[in-house]
């Protein structure tokens, strides 16, 4: 019997490994669609577009499933920043900016992770709505206030840049902060 405390449930891990590759595929195919270059791993626009279309449905479904799971299991409370998070921020930043050596242990996610995950979760709907509006004419109604499809394209691009940034920071910290915690997204246990 495993006496270690479980860090990520099976459902959370399964969903993570659906939306993580989907986000990666969306970023690479999206960058190719924005500026076609073989550096992004595609040779033809058609394959980049198909990848983008399949990955967006995977992301959309896993994102909705993750929200439902978060609500049912109440584990969204571990992720969404609250007043305590803001209070803990100065100490956390002091440590991350090498002004203090006291590493504080947090119940599950540190304030930085909470903000990062929440902003990623907030950027995804922006991408879904703007992406759908660029794709389906009837959905343009949802973004009419943006003033047209050119500004919508910009929003999609800007949110994508923010996602690239957030994902890079997320990857950097998972690879350098704690390898045990990194292991837990595969095995469930830290």
């Amino acid at each position, binding site marked *: 019997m495993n006496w270690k405390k479980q860090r990520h449930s099976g459902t959370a891990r399964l969903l993570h490994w659906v939306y993580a590759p989907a986000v990666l595929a969306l970023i690479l195919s999206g960058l190719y669609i924005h500026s076609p270059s073989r550096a992004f791993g595609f040779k*033809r626009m058609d394959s980049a577009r198909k990848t983008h279309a399949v990955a967006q449905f995977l992301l959309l479904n896993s994102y909705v499933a993750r929200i439902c799971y978060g609500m049912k299991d109440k584990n969204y409370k571990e992720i969404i920043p609250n007043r305590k998070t803001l209070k803990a921020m100065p100490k956390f930043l002091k440590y991350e900016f*090498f002004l203090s050596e006291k590493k504080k242990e947090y119940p599950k996610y540190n304030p930085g992770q909470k903000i990062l995950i929440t902003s990623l979760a907030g950027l995804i709907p922006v991408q879904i709505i703007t992406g759908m509006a660029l794709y389906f004419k009837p959905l343009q109604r949802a973004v009419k206030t943006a003033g047209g499809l*050119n*500004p919508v394209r910009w929003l999609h691009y800007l949110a994508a840049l923010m996602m690239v940034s957030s994902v890079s920071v997320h990857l*950097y910290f998972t690879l350098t902060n704690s390898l045990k915690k990194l292991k837990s997204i595969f095995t469930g246990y830290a």
Partner: protein
Amino acid sequence: MVNEDVPAKPLIIWLGTNTCAGDMLSLLNAKDPGYQELISSIAELRFDYLLGASEGSDAINVLDDLQKNHKAAYILVVEGSIPTRSNGLYSVIGYRNGKAWTALQAVRELGAEARYVVAAGTCAAFGGIYAAAPNPSKCVSLQAVLDRKVINVPGCPINPEWMMGTLNHLIQYGEPALDDYSRPKLFYGETIHNLCQRRDYFDNSIFAAKPGEPWCMYKIGCKGPVTYADCPVRQWNGEHLSWPVKANTPCIGCASPEFPDGDVPFFEHLPDIKLPGIKVTANRVGLLTGVVTALGIGAHLMGSILTGRLAETLKKDLPGGSKLKIRPRLKKGHK
């Protein structure tokens, strides 16, 4: 007995406000039905700011008569945007009782009594060129000054068939199905990109590097993917001969609500971002985001290496990591 007050044919007023006259000139290229057929057997063009033979009070009296005696019997077509600065004095239609009759007053008064109101061209439909920054005369679209429905037929200029088709639909069947921007779906129901003859080149990533090349214009800023209009199938030049991409230049999105401010530069994929005092290109924003992220991660990584945090993590978490030799820390206090 024929009642002379009731016109046999539908009446049209074609009013010019702040316009280059491109839309009226474009309409003259219509084919099947052509302009001649429009004015001889389909409708009666009672007033036309460009082609009318009369001027001065003679011309204004025609408008007065239509407004007073033919309520809900005429179609008002407005070409151009409406200046609102100085109570609209930057566009004067004529003089009434010795006073300037501004376009703002005219469209409000004539629009209130019209059966249908149609905005011809992007300026009338969305503000367009005359409403572009810095917009000294504070031009706005027709819809912005009217509290009734305006049917928008954008384009810079309009394709003659878009206007001829809309007018004929209004006369024969009533209002056509409109989209969210009040444009007839008949002509603006699909993107240029989805109708484009060069779509195969796009799908296979065969792109033109400069105007004049016979490939897909995407990489030199073609706005076809974000512009709804049927230019590729309907085409232009009266005889339906060509359209911008066929002439080896990118689509500049002239039928879009954000044209021109929201989609310049025309030869770039994304418009520039304009902040007070600065203008940044999309690629610069991308580059800047990448550099800032890389610098941030790089600086933190360097700090983690120099303070020994990274080594500590590896020592603690790696199997056999305890045997790793950790560099002494830089700071005294870091034990």
